[in-house]
């Protein structure tokens, strides 16, 4: 069944009918937008899981409430509010809320929803004390709210494909021709959940459609009884008959019969009652708290209920086959779909492989030989985007206009020039660890507040100061942000515009590679437990090592070694490279700068080479880097394409910069990506989720 079939029926569906009956003001909103907004209250394991299942079924889950956890997003798209009031300010037209809190706290949540006059409230919890249920019921009646539960599996509307609760997708709507669904059919209301599956299965096997399945709850006291629900359902024109599934215990069925006798005009359509518990013993609770025959009571027994219902003309059945016969008779033999369609749907549903539970990132698309940041090819950024522009793009999804960009640049300069923390750093620690240590202790960043983009710029600017200090470089008193970064990296005011441009390009090439690089993973993990951005980015930066992100430096050292060997032995650089590669292979060492787990032709390679040529900065190392793939293939016997680290290493070598500059470039450039991933995680994911990084799905531009 296509989910798209749902929305067309929403306006004229049973749920809209119920909601408008209760809140006539919703009518205007529903006809305009055609969407019934539902909400979820309580995001424990059950609430989170079922919010997703409800949405996958087709229900428009517009908002969630999780006291104490506002301003987050559930399943990457459902806004989470800390209170009912906060949610209603943003979503005043919520028509249905399902409550997923535990029995000890669910009563207060339900009362809040009822008093907020949300027309339909579904209370899932089992085990709510009777006195609490009594208060809830009284409040629901006073506030004209249809309260389903406590202890209900929920409500589901198959034609609209909307549900609030945990009923599975086993109920079939009318389908006059394949793929066309309508809201006509039978409405079921029941005290129990699992029995509904068998009931609807039997009806569907005979082509009888359901337009609504409403669980009133299995407890002795529930918010709405059959007598509250059935007249509302019967006033819906597309409901042709109503089935009530009752059971022993209490007197909901007896009261229903009494109401039918007193006000027959409220019950104009045929009713079939399926009663369970004909053979149940007295005095023993049968699973449901409400399903017990009180010893000595003159109500609650199967016989009492059957007699009462039959005396007002309700057909009472006690078996699946009799139910089908009785409903068929009530409908005058009418059917609503071909049962083969139902069986095929169930088969697809049940045979379908379990859905991949992926999660979304929208920052960088990483595919073989493709790198797109927020829809912009990384090559374009290498060809002339400043680090500030790149950062803003990653966080906000677009490069800001010129004015905004220069404002951010000014902020970056102002922040970069503040002194880094005064502390003694371990001498032999890698540059990444030193920069991270300074960053973690950075007072200006800890104190910073601003928009997300400003926060990201602050992160990069302070990392710039930390990188400068860990390299022993001093930043000038002024200058634009690009110049400050260049100085941080090379130590002296970079007056050479070509070098500045090249460094800026390398920074752009380093900003991000999706969620899988270890530094991004480390940052995201810290973000998932809501560490500060400072701690999370320091964490990610510490994960930049000789194994991850250090290849540029080793590649630079490799090219320098090749050129040195070439000079020493007076052999062509190619030959020297071949010799060194063979030696390294014999030692079992990895060859840095070669090969990539994703790309066979690194998209960052050519723009960097071209830029180096254009700026007249390509020398013998860059020339050698162009031949390296071929040399390596000869030596290694397999194709090992040069990667971005190889190209960066070669450029660093040709610029006469120390190899460590390559590492520093990576640390500074990647801080922008880490900031972006941090912000994405806290804005779109639940705290402390279990993260499988292989399950990330890119859903950006």
């Amino acid at each position, binding site marked *: 069944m296509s989910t798209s079939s749902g929305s067309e029926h929403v306006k004229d569906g049973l749920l809209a009918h119920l909601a408008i009956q209760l809140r006539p003001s919703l009518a205007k909103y529903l006809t305009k937008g055609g969407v019934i907004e539902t909400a979820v209250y309580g995001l424990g394991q059950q609430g989170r899981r079922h919010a997703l299942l409800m949405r996958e079924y087709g229900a428009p889950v517009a908002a969630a409430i999780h006291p104490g956890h506002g301003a987050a997003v559930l399943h990457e798209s459902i806004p989470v509010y800390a209170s009912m009031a906060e949610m209603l300010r943003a979503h005043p037209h919520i028509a249905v809320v399902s409550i997923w809190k535990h029995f000890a706290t669910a009563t207060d949540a339900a009362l809040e929803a009822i008093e907020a006059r949300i027309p339909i409230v579904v209370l899932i919890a089992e085990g709510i*004390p*009777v006195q609490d249920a009594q208060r809830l019921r009284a409040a629901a009646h006073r506030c004209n709210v249809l309260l389903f539960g406590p202890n209900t599996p929920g409500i589901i509307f198959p034609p609209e494909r909307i549900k609030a609760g945990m009923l599975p997708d*086993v109920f079939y709507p009318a389908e006059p021709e394949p793929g066309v669904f309508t809201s006509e059919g039978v409405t079921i209301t029941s005290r129990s959940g699992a029995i509904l599956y*068998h009931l609807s299965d039997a009806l569907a096997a005979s082509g009888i459609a359901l337009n609504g399945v409403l669980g009133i709850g299995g407890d002795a006291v529930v918010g709405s009884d059959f007598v509250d629900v059935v007249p509302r359902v019967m006033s819906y024109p597309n409901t042709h008959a109503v089935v009530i*599934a009752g059971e022993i215990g209490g*007197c909901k069925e007896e009261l229903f019969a009494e109401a039918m006798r007193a006000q027959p005009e409220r019950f104009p359509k045929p009713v079939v009652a399926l009663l369970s518990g004909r*053979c149940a013993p007295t005095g023993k609770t049968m*699973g449901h*708290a409400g399903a017990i025959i009180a*010893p000595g009571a003159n109500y609650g027994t199967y016989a009492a209920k059957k007699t009462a219902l039959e005396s007002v003309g309700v057909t009472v059945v006690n078996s699946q086959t009799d139910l089908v016969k009785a409903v068929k008779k009530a409908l005058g033999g009418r059917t609503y779909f071909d049962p083969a369609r139902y069986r095929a749907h169930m088969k697809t549903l049940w045979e379908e492989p379990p859905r991949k539970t992926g999660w979304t990132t929208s920052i960088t698309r990483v595919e073989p030989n493709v790198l797109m940041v927020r829809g912009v090819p990384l090559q374009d950024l290498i060809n002339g985007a400043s680090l500030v522009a790149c950062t803003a793009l990653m966080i906000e999804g677009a490069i800001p206009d010129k004015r905004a960009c220069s404002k951010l640049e000014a902020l970056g300069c102002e922040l970069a020039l503040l002194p880094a923390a005064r502390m003694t750093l371990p001498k032999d620690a890698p540059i990444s660890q030193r920069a991270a240590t300074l960053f973690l202790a950075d007072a200006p960043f800890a104190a910073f507040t601003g928009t997300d983009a400003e926060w990201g710029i602050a992160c990069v600017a302070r990392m710039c100061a930390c990188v400068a200090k860990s390299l022993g470089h001093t930043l000038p008193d002024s200058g634009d942000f690009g110049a400050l970064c260049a100085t941080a990296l090379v130590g002296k005011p970079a007056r050479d515009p070509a070098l500045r441009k090249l460094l800026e390009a390398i920074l752009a090439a380093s900003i991000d590679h999706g969620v899988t690089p270890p530094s991004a993973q480390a940052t995201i993990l810290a973000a998932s437990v809501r560490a500060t951005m400072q701690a999370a980015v320091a964490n990610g930066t510490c994960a930049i090592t000789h194994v991850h992100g250090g290849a540029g430096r080793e590649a630079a050292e490799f090219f320098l070694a090749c050129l040195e060997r070439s000079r020493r032995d007076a052999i062509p650089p190619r030959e020297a490279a071949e010799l060194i590669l063979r030696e390294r292979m014999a030692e079992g060492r990895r060859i840095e700068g070669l090969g990539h787990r994703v790309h066979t032709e690194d998209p960052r390679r050519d723009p960097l080479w071209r830029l180096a040529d254009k700026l007249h900065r390509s020398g013998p190392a860059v020339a050698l880097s162009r031949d390296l793939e071929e040399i390596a293939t000869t030596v290694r016997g397999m194709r090992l394409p040069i990667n971005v680290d190889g190209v960066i290493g070669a450029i660093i070598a040709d610029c006469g910069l120390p190899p460590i500059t390559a590492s520093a470039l990576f640390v500074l450039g990647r801080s922008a990506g880490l900031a972006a991933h941090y912000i994405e995680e806290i804005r779109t994911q639940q705290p402390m989720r279990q993260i499988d990084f292989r399950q990330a799905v890119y859903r950006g531009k």
Partner: protein
Amino acid sequence: MRLYEYEAKQLLARAGFSLPVQYGVADRIAAAEKLPLQFPVMVKAQVLIGGRGKAGGIRKAENKSALRGAVKEVLAARISGHAVERVLLEAAVPIERAFYLGVAMNPVTCGNTLIVGLDGGVDIEEAARKRPDSLFRAELPLDGGTLPPALRRDLERFLAAGVESKPVRAALAEACAQLFQAFVKYDCTLLEINPLVQSGPGLMAADAKAVLDNNALYRQSELLSALGIAGKRHDVSEPTAREQRASKAGFAYVDLLPEDAQRESGRHYVGLVPGGAGYGIFSIDEVQNIGGRIRKHCFVPLNFMDSGGGPTREAVKEMFALILDHPLVDVIVTSRFGGISSCDIYIQGLVACLRERAATGARVVPIHGRMVGTDLPAARAFLEQARQQTPGPLAQLHLAVGNERIMAEAIREGLTESLRQSEGAWR
């Protein structure tokens, strides 16, 4: 959860009611004789079902020699089929006048009702029939345990018409307020004093009935520990061994036949392993209905069972083991309609149970049923592989996979086939 009389009285004492002197509870004569008694003494059966007076569950002992006989008789009584395990010994009090006082959850209004009767000590339903104007009924507020002024005025008007003594009227009105307060405070669904006796100037609760809301036990730990109750107890009757075993394993189970039921010839006993409470109740009816159409008075369902949502593999295994251990079971009808619960876990538990029983030589009977729903492909693959690996233990498992036929048909086929086979064996 129903309280025994002596527990209900402790609850009332906490609420400020006077009681006849409570000497103690005894489970045999020697224990009763050790109590510091002052005669005359009432000996009262402690059972959770009503009607004990008529069934010989209450005796008055005027002196020590009469005590033995009274305790012996009461302990030997059977009250609506239930054995008496303990007796309460309390002072017999002179009764000047008896009243009825009760607060009960009202299934019609879903609120709570206060009932005051001018004739205590008799069945309240009977009093309502015989002398309706001797009863006062009022619906109680749901926000707190205080009687509203209007209700108090009505009550006082009613009492003024039926009770002459002004202090007694005042005491009765106060007792109503106390009872309601206790009802709310202790999360009762029924709190009843019958009779509330006028003995001298004061009122005394001579008998008491209390039912606590099972769902609220979690917030009544103070009361429960004062009463010495460890947790949720059984309903009216003591749980059977199988019911205890199920409760230990974490699922609901009810025996439908007495624990000592003997096999009757011409009967075919059906064990049930369905899913969900509602279908658990309904499947008992289905077996009777469908069975009755196959052969009248032949098929006897043995049990109610409810796995609860999403049972573990171990729980499923134990569910089958429990019913396979039932000495009467001839066939098992099972259904798995996996909505929330997984077919895969279900079939793994079922197969593990059958394999274990084959290995230990435990009894196995034919199992018929249907399995559809969540994780069906994995469940089907598991079952097919299991059949290849261990065909022997699974020979009696007849499971329809998928919903080509509705469950009622699966039950009909299962019952017919099982009866045919067992009769073939007899021949």
